């Protein structure tokens, strides 16, 4: 009988910390949309001001739907590019495998801020893409990527891609090689092995990647703030403005609550869909 076994004392500090520093502030955040606050000071009055504007002004519904649509598109793009990356990692060996892993993990170690800066250099009017296409004579005037939907989608997809690839990679690596060998021995072509054996078996990895990328893309701040600029804004960018520029904390709190509820709902729905696709998993 080891002494680590009965030690609830080990959990106590972390539970206390998470309660005071995360759970209580979060409860307050939900309630705050109902309270009147003036520049950080609670006035003591109850008001629906925070939530009222969100539900009456169609502008907020528009921003919310736009952000949902962007997160959905980015998730789909990440799956389209991310799944093949995991598959290439799965099939290759030696140096190639290490190179693929390096490409996937290295961006995780640099901040999204740095990567957004990279895209600003590439996508700008004087940027790499426009300069290359102009000098080749393919374009006659530069294309506007920055501060448009295109730029935000490109930047977000790249920033979220590793979060899609890693769960799929790890579920692919746990596949018993015997499965693929059996399929090949029974006469399946390479494409059939991919589509009928590997893809269904890695659905748990896909489910993990899709949920993760969706939440992260829905709530990402630096990428849309920099690549969307003043002209193309998502919900987190508006929340930041409401808090930092307008100093309207009760509306900011209400918007942040909506962001959290929206992403929780989306994850719940995604998990239900994937449970249908994988009846064996539940």
């Amino acid at each position: 009988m080891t002494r680590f076994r009965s030690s609830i004392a080990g959990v106590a500090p972390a539970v206390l910390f998470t309660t005071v520093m995360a759970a209580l502030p979060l409860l307050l955040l939900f309630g705050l949309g109902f309270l009147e606050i003036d520049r950080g000071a609670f006035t003591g009055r109850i008001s629906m001001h925070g939530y009222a504007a969100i539900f009456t002004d169609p502008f907020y519904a528009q921003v919310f739907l736009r952000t949902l649509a962007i997160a959905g598109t980015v998730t789909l793009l990440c799956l389209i590019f991310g799944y093949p990356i995991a598959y290439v990692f799965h099939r290759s060996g030696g140096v190639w495998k290490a190179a693929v892993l390096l490409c996937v993990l290295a961006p995780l170690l640099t901040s999204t801020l740095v990567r957004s800066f990279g895209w600003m250099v590439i996508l700008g009017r004087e940027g790499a893409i426009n300069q290359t296409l102009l000098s080749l004579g393919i374009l006659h005037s530069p294309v506007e990527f920055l501060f448009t939907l295109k730029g935000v989608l490109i930047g977000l997809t790249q920033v979220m891609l590793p979060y899609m690839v890693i769960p799929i990679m790890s579920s692919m690596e746990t596949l018993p090689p015997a499965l693929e060998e059996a399929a090949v021995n029974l006469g399946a072509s390479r494409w059939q092995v991919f589509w009928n054996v590997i893809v269904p078996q890695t659905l748990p990895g896909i489910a993990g990647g899709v949920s993760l990328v969706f939440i992260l893309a829905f709530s990402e701040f630096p990428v849309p703030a920099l690549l969307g600029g003043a002209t193309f804004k998502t919900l987190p960018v508006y929340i930041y403005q409401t808090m930092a520029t307008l100093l309207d904390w009760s509306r900011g709190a209400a918007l942040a609550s909506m962001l959290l509820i929206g992403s929780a709902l989306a994850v719940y729905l995604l998990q239900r869909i994937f449970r249908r696709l994988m009846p064996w998993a539940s």
Partner: protein
Amino acid sequence: MGELKPRVWLDRLGAGLLTVLAAVGLLSLIVPTLIVVVESFDTRRFIAFPPAGFSLDRYRAVFASGLIIHSAELSFLCALIVISLDLLLGVPAAIALVRGEFRAKAAFTAFLLSPIMLPGIVIGIAILIFFSMLGASPSLPLMVVSHVVFTLPFLIRLTMARMERTNATLEEASENLGANRWQTFRYVLLPQLWPGVAAGAGFSFLNSFDNLTISLFTAPVRQRPLPIELFYMTRFDLDPRVAAVAAMEFIAALVVVALVSGKLSKNGLKDL
């Protein structure tokens, strides 16, 4: 054998499509960072592609700027405190959550891991408002607390994943042989846990040092951490010094990955 032909055709098309998609994806992952590295050596006073020449002017400008150096020092200090708190709170919790036998263990695990689902902007705003009501204002301690809320669940999860693969009989043997609790932890448990703990600590460091979204609400207003400084330098005009800072961050990251990638490909992926 005639029916095999379309299969071969489908095989090639499928393999070709997958390879092209993977190649585009992989290129998009590294090219932006490589371009930033190339740009960091440009001679001009503004950002444009391709670079007009080679110089270290941008690096000199970074080290000459007290603002950037001080903000990097603040971010570094913050990250070190965050790691220490994460380890003190997270490692005992992870050990108890795996090895312990107490009521509602599953509920405690779910509660401690749940902040993983919280978007950074929500954590930042919730902590700012909560502590403002208590009379505190954005400061280094507030920034540290908000970063610990964000990073602690990841450290607990990585340590737990490692802890699940350890064997309780080893600890029992150690105690039967007369080791006290600290000795059992230090000489029996820790050597088995350290890859998970180290990965968690590395994760905490990066996510604290690089954090922008949470810090925007909790960081001291007068002395700003590096990501906020870089954010303002990027937002209002493409300051060429950002390229040099970004390049240094990337090269440091590359060295770390190259050093540990062998170990990661063997057992790190499963823990994520």
